[in-house]
């Protein structure tokens, strides 16, 4: 049974307890930041910041609305990172979300390159490519596994207004649709069908773009091409040639020996 998080932007107050509790649970360090004319910080997700709240001011009804959005891994079903990850370090957990096994990571950074939400971030040197890649693991990091121990994710537990709910994805989709219907207007449930279904669902009062979310996210064909073409092709070509060469070697040697004997 797939699990998910429902984020209700109408309830969120951007207290950012989730941002901090995520750091506590996952033992992440604080980052150096600056005030850039906003309440928002750090600048973006990073290996030390797996979730951050975004603040947006938009005009509404002659006044202003202050929209808050959760920015963290969306745990896509059609996940660019999972598709692109050559080693299976990023994988779909049995419960549907995108988990991450650091032990298998080669640091290739393809997950960074193929995420339609630009969630995983490489923090390190551009020259050497050395650095850390990390992202929300839905609290399943080895040794810090809440889900496996029957707990809800840390961000969900900490959310004071209950803007985050953890549960069966199907139920949450139904709940989200109910809330969106009650809100009316431009309200949207984001994530029900995007990328074959996200495991973080958003109840939004307005269009996804208003909240900075891509309207119709897609995983690049190149990601699929890598997993579906490159890897099989690589093994097929490599295997065939290696096999051919082996036969060639055996045959050639045998015939040469025979020729020498004949001589």
């Amino acid at each position, binding site marked *: 049974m797939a699990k998910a998080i429902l984020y209700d932007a109408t309830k969120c*107050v951007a207290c950012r307890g989730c941002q*901090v509790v995520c750091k506590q649970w996952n033992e992440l360090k604080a980052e150096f930041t600056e005030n*850039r004319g906003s309440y928002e910080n750090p600048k973006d997700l990073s290996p030390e910041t797996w979730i951050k709240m975004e603040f947006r001011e938009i005009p509404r009804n002659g006044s*202003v609305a*202050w929209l808050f959005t959760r920015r963290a891994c969306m745990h896509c079903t059609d996940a660019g990172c999972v598709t692109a990850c050559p080693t299976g370090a990023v994988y779909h957990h049995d419960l549907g979300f995108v988990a991450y096994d650091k032990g298998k990571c080669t640091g290739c950074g393809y997950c960074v390159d193929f995420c339609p939400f630009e969630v995983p971030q490489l923090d390190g040197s551009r020259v050497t490519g050395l650095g850390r890649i990390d992202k929300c693991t839905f609290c399943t990091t080895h040794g810090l596994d809440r889900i496996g121990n029957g707990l809800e994710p840390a961000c969900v537990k900490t959310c004071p207004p209950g803007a985050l709910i953890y549960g069966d994805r199907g139920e949450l989709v139904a709940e989200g649709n109910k809330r969106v219907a009650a809100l009316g207007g431009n309200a949207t449930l984001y994530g029900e069908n995007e990328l074959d279904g996200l495991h973080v669902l958003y109840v939004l009062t307005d269009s996804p773009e208003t909240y900075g979310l891509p309207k119709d996210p897609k995983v690049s064909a190149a990601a699929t091409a890598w997993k579906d073409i490159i890897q099989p092709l690589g093994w097929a070509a490599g295997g065939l040639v290696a096999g051919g060469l082996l036969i060639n070697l055996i045959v050639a040697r045998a015939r040469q020996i025979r020729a020498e004997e004949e001589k």
Partner: protein
Amino acid sequence: MTNHWNDIANADCMIAIGSNPVENHPAASGWITAAKERGAKLISVDPRFTRTSAIADIYCKMRSGTDVAFIGGIIKYVLDEMDQYPEKYNMVYVTEYTNASFLINPDFEGPADLDGLFSGYDPAKRSYDKSSWQYQSPEEDGTPKWDKSLKDPNCVFQHLKKHFARYDVDTVCKITGSPKDTYLEICKTYAATGAPGKTGTILYAMGTTQHTNGTQMIRSYAMLQLLLGNIGVAGGGINALRGESNVQGSTDHCLLCHILPGYLKQPTNKDETLEKLLERVTPKSGDPKSANWWQHYPKYMVSLLKAWYGDAATKGNEFGYQYLPKTTKPYNDYSWIGLFEEMYAGTIKGLMCWGQNPAVCGPNVKMERKAIENLDWLVAVDLWETETAAIWKRPGVDPSTIGVEVFLLPAAASYEKEGSITNSGRWAQWRYKAIEPPGQAKEDLWIINKLVLKLQELYARESGPNAEAITKLTWDYGDSPSADKVAREINGYNLTTGKLAASFGKLKDDGTTSSGNWLYCASYTEAGNMMARRDPSPGAFNIGLHPKWAWCWPVNRRIIYNRASVDLDGVPWDKEHPVIWWRNGKWDGDVPDGGWPPMALDPEKTKYPFIMKPEGHARIFGMGRADGPFPEHYEPWESPVDNLLSGTQNDPAFKIWGSEMDLKGDRDRYPIVCTTYRLTEHWQAGQMTRNLPWIVELMPEMFVELSQELAAEKGIVNGGRVIVETARGKVEGVALVTARFKPFQINGQTVHQVGLPWHWGYTGSSTGDSANMLTPHVGDANTMIPEFKAFLCDVRRA
């Protein structure tokens, strides 16, 4: 809070005014969300669109310091409606439970007659002779003189109508700068909670208290709530959302100049004997239906003295009353501003700071820092190197020129020790030690104990003036006191049996009981430490009282004045959310405000519900205040506009101090309104958050919020640097240009307002300018709480 956090969920409408609960009480604000889920409306009134406004159903901007006008307009709206549609309101509540029907001395005149003043004003003393503000003498049987039809021109209700007749919507909006249609929507929405069975709550905080007329603003809230029948009911009340974890407890224990534990009065010089004190402070009522709870004052005072002086407190020595210091000046002169004025003048030589950081948190800190510099010695007990302790390190000073000797003592954090704290909803909750404090850090309890033991030793050896006050002080906590033992002392004992006192009803004035704080009597009984209880069941009527979770004063009553939540037959106004209910000859539900039967059922034995007032009725007319029995709109001390309502520009009764650093800015030089506030991410003077890396990451720098319009005018860009200057000082910060601040149209004039968080200072991991460099050294006429929220500034690009 008259009610408590969980109770907010029972409200039908909530006004957050002078508060920003979502940002400053984020977790408890879950109960606001819970109310909204039930369909309740949230109204956010604030000069700035906040995170509370972001989830509000109605947001209305209001210029800082104009609350009385804002609420006055709603009161007028309600009074007008009461004339036309009395059935929409709970007139029984207004007539029977408040003093609306009481007749006032015919000499009384108000601002409508006296150009903004009340009768009895003496401009030279800036104070009132209140003799005309009194009830007419009661009938012979003790019954007050009243007119239950509310028609007598001398009754409170008619005075009220006359007073607020001037607060029409147009005038109000010209003063506050609120959009008229939004304002009317608020009047309509909130007035709807006046229907019997409907409830509204007012959530306020320092945005209200920190004005020269803050007390009157709060009174305007309370009066509105009384008119709407919203006090004592579930989902109602007026709720001060307090800002520090134990500021309720520290107030209850009265670490304040004018009171002793349990809100007993600090004796003045004229209270020469205990008898004279008790005579002055114990209220009397001739009305047999008035419980007049404070008549028990002597029991609480004597029990306090017994707790402090034990066997040395005897009838013969007035229970040690003479050991206590007495004051001479009006009490406000000893309060914060007066204290720092005296320190500045050099009277005060030594200062102890217990987890407080005046160099950041005080008003006009430029002056208060100078005052701290004047001390001979300073003891700071804290977790961190505070700005106060590091006063000699502050930017721009040469340490060698600063003579103050500083002791900085390392204290334990909240979970490095054991004890209780009392939240805003009056719940006293016990907490435990999770980990040893780092290094040599010690509990404050340990530090206080060591100091007192040493002082007792010194005075026993060397003596000194009034030495017995120290040597005879009961101080038997051993080398390392346990919070448990102290908690028992606070609760008090029956000294005859040696058992813990069961409740303050059992306290006596003959020296046979002790209680360190009568309000906390029943918090620790023979049944155990009530504050440590952890049964989360919601309790009676399922309104979230949680009566077995921890303990709340008084006597575990979760909603105070709850006898006003029922009609004269003891039946709840709101049967969906009953607080108490008279059934089968007894009260069910919360601990009632006295167990007397309902007013209509047993006129002999019953008592009025507002038991803390000698007249038993809630005071719509409040004769106790320094600046008038009704709230009147006055402009802040520094204001960009003239008072539109009268020729009296400022509250006439607050004290103005005269040191050379108590400067006032004029509106030509400083045309912009400035206010200060807190953020979700930081706390108070900032040491408790500016030293936590996770928090600093979220809010790394001091900033200034201003409107796009003002920024355009001044050439300020978002993310750039900006300087805010007042007559007192200037601060620099990052400019946060936002659509959440909008200029006000005040009587046809454009008035800008800017705002700054006040969390920064010069020590710690994240440093920045202190907003209190800007604030004035004036305070409320009644409480002397400083004016942090409305003053004048100018803004420019750095």
